[in-house]
Structure formats: structure tokens, C-alpha cells
């Protein structure tokens, strides 16, 4: 039977400090632990992408209503098959419009078992647009810039997530208590039209 022992004492009538470890039960234990951990392991990591429905809260007649300056909003138009259109608007007035080329037809990237749509050019353009036009970029600012996604009714959900993921590539610092972290610069919502 195998055993591990380091002879470092036991002389002079005293009991040895070391004791033998039985190799076979030890290897059995390691094997069982590995099997258990492999069986219970989770190999896919789920997470979430946030969106905001922009629903107003309940009316509060006791509070004084403050007049708020309408903010700039980024409208992302994805109805055309060959381009995305980024439109900055302030209370219905168009401030600027930029087109971003889109592959037509789009070919998904196969990642594992899932066909994924990625829009790196769109992500880069949205990031640069936010850096020049975006209003909420200070870490102490609790508000976020608003992005509104316009899509047709037949667009598959996988493509919507691809575009929302591209919008969330633009990051800004955000102070939570004493520490600062990078969070997406936009709040995303859908256009109902």
C-alpha cells in the first residue's frame, strides 16, 4: 500500500509529529471531488442587458412641477436593410444625422451553437457621437443619455440585442458611493412606432 511519510522525528522516545496519509483513499476522494465539481459545473454564464420603458411615475399633486429643459436623444433607425441612421433630436428638432453602413444581407457569426449578429462599426460610431454630443458624462451625474431604437416588426430579437450591445459599448464613469465604475453611457428604450 502506498503511503507518504516524512521522517523527521520520533527519536528519543517521543511520538513522531508526522503521520502517514493513505494514498488510495486520498486519490479516491480527489477523484470523487473532481467528478462532483465537473457534474455540477455551469459552463454558460448568463447575464443581462438593461432597458428602460420610460414610463412616468404616479402623479404627485403635492410636489411642485419643475420645468425641465428637453434633452438631446439619440434615435437609432435600423429599418433600412443597408444602413443604420443615427439621429440626434432635441424636443422633436433634428440636430444631426449620420449614416452607418450595414452589410446587406447580414451574415451571422457562429459562436458555439448560437448565430450572433455583431455591429462593431455601429458601436464605434455611437461611441464617437456620444463623446461629441452626449450630455451626461460626469461621474457625479445620475442621469443618462437616452437612446431610442426604431425597428420594424419582423426584425429577429437576435439582431435587436446586437444593436443594443453596440449602443452599450459607449461607457462613462459613474460614482456609486465611494468608488467609481464604468457603466453604459446610454439608457435604451424602444420606439413604439
Amino acid at each position, binding site marked *: 500500500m502506498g503511503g507518504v511519510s516524512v521522517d523527521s522525528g520520533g527519536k528519543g522516545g517521543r511520538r513522531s509529529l508526522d503521520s502517514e496519509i493513505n494514498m488510495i483513499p486520498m486519490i479516491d476522494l480527489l477523484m470523487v471531488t473532481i467528478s462532483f*465539481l465537473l457534474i455540477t459545473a455551469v459552463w454558460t454564464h448568463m*447575464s*443581462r*442587458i438593461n432597458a428602460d420603458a420610460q414610463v412616468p411615475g404616479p402623479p404627485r399633486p403635492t410636489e411642485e412641477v419643475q420645468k425641465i429643459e428637453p434633452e438631446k436623444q439619440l434615435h437609432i433607425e435600423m429599418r433600412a436593410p443597408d444602413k443604420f441612421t443615427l439621429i440626434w433630436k432635441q424636443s422633436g428638432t433634428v440636430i444631426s444625422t449620420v449614416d452607418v453602413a450595414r452589410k446587406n444581407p447580414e451574415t451571422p457569426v457562429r459562436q458555439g451553437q448560437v448565430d450572433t449578429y455583431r455591429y462593431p462599426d455601429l458601436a464605434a460610431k455611437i461611441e464617437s457621437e456620444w463623446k461629441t454630443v452626449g450630455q451626461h458624462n460626469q461621474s457625479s451625474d445620475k442621469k443618462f443619455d437616452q437612446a431610442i431604437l426604431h425597428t420594424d416588426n419582423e426584425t429577429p430579437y437576435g439582431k435587436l440585442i446586437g444593436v443594443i450591445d453596440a449602443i452599450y459599448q459607449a461607457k462613462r464613469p459613474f460614482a456609486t458611493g465611494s468608488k467609481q465604475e464604468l457603466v453604459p453611457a446610454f439608457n435604451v428604450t424602444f420606439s*413604439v412606432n
Partner: protein
Amino acid sequence: MPVQEPGRRLMHHVGLKFVEKRVSGGGGRSVNAGLSLTSMIDFLVVTVVFLLMTFSASGETPQAKGVTLPLAENTLDMIDAPIVAVTGSQVIVDGVPAGNTRAIEDAKRLQRVDELFNILKSKRELWKQTHPGKDFPGVVLLQIDQEVQAVVVKSVFQTAAFAGYPNVSFMVNSIPKTQH
């Protein structure tokens, strides 16, 4: 039968010469290979440590059958909230059927899913009763198959918002961030 001392038991009078040859190592390479015990234990210990570090005792959010979640890079950590799954044309809230989206697909326009609305509203009322004096977070997780049409996504999104859940999160499988 008396207990005998362990040792070789191959009986020489049995005519299995090739076995004897093999066992004794004569006449060719032995079928047995030596294994270094130290290296093996090192390997097992490293594997156990790695698996223990990646182990999650809290488990994983259940995924509805038939739902293929899309992949995304810029994601947030999961939170505890009601899960609305949309698989095919079936809507499920925390494992309980909550309506059908076939009418929306046929009409191709935004509609409220009444059954989903009622279930979410009752969940909201229940939360308020069990957490008196606290602000309702209004968070719901949408677990939607990646082939589902946008009109269904928007209808479910809007139904959840009208039922008092304006903070809607889409469940995705996260992938490592690419370098830009």
C-alpha cells in the same frame, strides 16, 4: 479457506506460457506502465482547486426549454426578479403559462398580452404587501428566443412596463469583450 499472504498466484503448471511471459516481463515490453504518484496528485489537486474556485453554490438562473439566448458583450450581472420567458408563441412567467403571442404575430402590431399583464400586476401587488413601506424596484427579466420577432418583444416589453415593471432587462449569454 484460510487467508493467504498476498503474492504471485500464477500457477506454473497451467499451460499459459504467453501470460507468464507477459507478467514476468520477458519476451517484450510490459503492458503495465509506471505512473508518477507525485505528478498525478499535483494534477488532481490543481484540478480540484480550479473547479472549487469556479463553483457556484447559488446555481444558475433556470432557462426555459426551447429558448436560445443571444450573446452579448456589454452586459450586467444577473439580479433576482420575475422571469418572463417567450418561447415560440408561448409566454411563461416564473414557469407558469401566461398567455400566447400568436395573435400579435398574426396582426403584426403591438398589443398588450392580457394574461401576462394580470400575472405581473398580481406579483407586484403581492410584493407590495410583503414589503410594506419599501419602493417597488419594478425589474423584470425577459428570456426571449433569438428568433422571436421584434413586434412580440416590444409587446411583451410594453405589457411589462404597463404592469408596473418599467426596468426591463433582457437575458443574454455573456461573451468575453473584444479589444478595440
